[in-house]
């Protein structure tokens, strides 16, 4: 049998959207998003790209099978099908009211995903290094911990070599090559490169790929656990500062004036 790769993908409001598309509702302690479509979490797209490259690199044996796993209240089929069309073989969706992203903390997220993965055949689980909405960065490692498998974080390259996963792991001043036996989980970083575009034909036929939908009743036990982290308040960031504009005749004068000002104000 070929290698089974599971890629976890969260849908998030487009993180590249302008700052004024996000507002804070202090009363409900929720971030309200205006007019931004959901997109696949960019790091999770990197994870899918890593999976496709592993599949492509294989020259012998049964081809790897890539399963896309996504969880949410109401998953945009346009987004998940487009992701599937880049190279997934099938998909599992965990869907329903209780899976609303802002209602779940990292611990429940990891618990629900791990419970689902446990029911599937898997050799390698790939996730993004963090989600663009919560910026939490704990679900991937949490899944591994709950499944009892080794985890490697922040990958810029992922390869399967003789039953092990070999990873280039990003360091602040370079990278290290680390290895773990399969099954394993790897969280992927943007250094690996963007997810490829699907072909039009692949997008058209993606909906025929096998899909399985799990509903809240399939995960009753896991949903009954309380979160470990509770939001008690939400505020808009106060980033604005009062900016002293340095104005002079020519751009060169402006540069010199800025230098003088920084020294006069003892900023330097």
């Amino acid at each position, binding site marked *: 049998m070929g290698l089974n790769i599971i890629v976890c993908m969260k849908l998030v409001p487009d993180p*590249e959207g*302008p*700052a004024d598309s*996000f507002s*804070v509702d202090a009363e409900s*302690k929720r971030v309200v998003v205006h007019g931004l479509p959901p997109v696949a979490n960019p*790091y999770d797209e990197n994870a899918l790209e890593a999976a496709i490259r592993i599949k492509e690199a294989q020259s012998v044996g049964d081809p790897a099978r890539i399963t896309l796993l996504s969880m949410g209240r109401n998953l945009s089929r346009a987004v998940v099908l487009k992701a599937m069309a880049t190279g997934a073989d099938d998909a599992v969706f965990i869907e329903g009211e209780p899976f609303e992203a802002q209602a779940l903390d990292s611990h429940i997220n990891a618990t629900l995903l791990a419970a689902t993965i446990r029911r599937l055949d898997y050799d390698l689980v790939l996730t993004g290094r963090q989600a*663009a*909405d919560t910026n*939490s*960065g*704990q679900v*991937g*490692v*949490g899944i591994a911990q709950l499944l009892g498998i*080794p*985890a*490697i*974080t*922040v990958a810029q390259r992922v390869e399967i070599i003789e039953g092990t996963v070999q990873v280039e792991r*990003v360091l*602040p*001043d*370079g*990278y*290290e*090559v*680390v*290895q*773990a036996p399969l099954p394993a989980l790897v969280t992927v970083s*943007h250094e690996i490169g963007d997810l490829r575009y699907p072909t039009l034909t692949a997008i058209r036929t993606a909906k025929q790929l096998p899909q399985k939908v799990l509903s809240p009743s399939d995960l009753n036990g896991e949903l009954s656990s*309380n979160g*470990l*982290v*509770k*939001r*008690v*308040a*939400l*505020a*808009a*960031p106060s*980033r*604005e*500062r*009062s*900016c002293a*504009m*340095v*104005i002079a005749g020519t*751009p*060169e004068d*402006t*540069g*010199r*004036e*800025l230098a003088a000002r920084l*020294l006069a104000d003892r*900023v*330097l």
Partner: protein
Amino acid sequence: MPEKIIVFAELEDYACLTRLTLELMGLGARLASEFDGELDVVLLGDGIGDAAGELASLGARHVYVADHPTLQTYNPDVYLEVLKRLLQTESAFTLLAGHTPAGQDLMPRLAFALEAGLVTDCVGIENSSPGDGPVFIKPIFGGNALASQVVSTPRRIATVRARVGTAPEPTGGGGELVALDPPTIEPLVKTLDRTTEDRGVKLEDSRVVVSGGRGMGGAEGFQALDKLATLLGGAVGASRPPCDSGWVKASAQIGITGKIVAPDLYFAIAISGSSQHLSGMSEAGKIIAINQDPEAFIFKVADYGAVGDWKLVLPALTEALEKLLE
């Protein structure tokens, strides 16, 4: 109930406490006093007696030290074993770690191993919700909102950004050094090789950062930034577009998908100010922006602004500073 605050200390060059570790000691001492608790610290490494001694003088009651050759470089499985053994005997604590590569990798493992609630990337920790323990403040949605969170489990873990705490003055007081048993497990995750590049001053540790954006127009522009950075003993960074275009290395990227920096001084050259970039640098001490567009959002978040073509403004600025700083 008194809080037990524990700091996870980190070293650079295998020997010296990082600046962030010192800041965490200050933050830990503040929380210990606000919550009528005690401060402990744990340090892992090899040949680390001096650093452990320094921690003992910084207000810690206990300095837990695991000093062993297998702990010289970070390994997730080995570090997890040592910390788990120490902490599983503690029923309630707040563990503070830096939001560093090791902190980001290790703390989620520890949190899930100990059923502890974890808040990552904290920009503040307050005593503002009586009875709930510390309130952990972190940016979410790319820094477009700040969430205040409490942890309902008696074991709590937080990873904390630079500049949240203030490094304490040595008290001269002697914390008790407690030796931890060396690790015994054979790690599943093994490091085969490490490739590091000499990058001069590290972005994250640098007190001055000079960054360029899309408006730099190409790789050549970054040499001008390098000149100013070198003059001020700083490092060069970038917003996302120059990294995506290959003008600079991906490791120079500052923002939610790159590095998070909090230097004393941040120069934003030809950077418009997307939220994804701002969330990586808005904690900087002073922000100086140069941009051709007077309406650029960066001026709203900067302390000093200059409107003009960076190709003309920046060399004049650098040259003038060269003379003035002589």
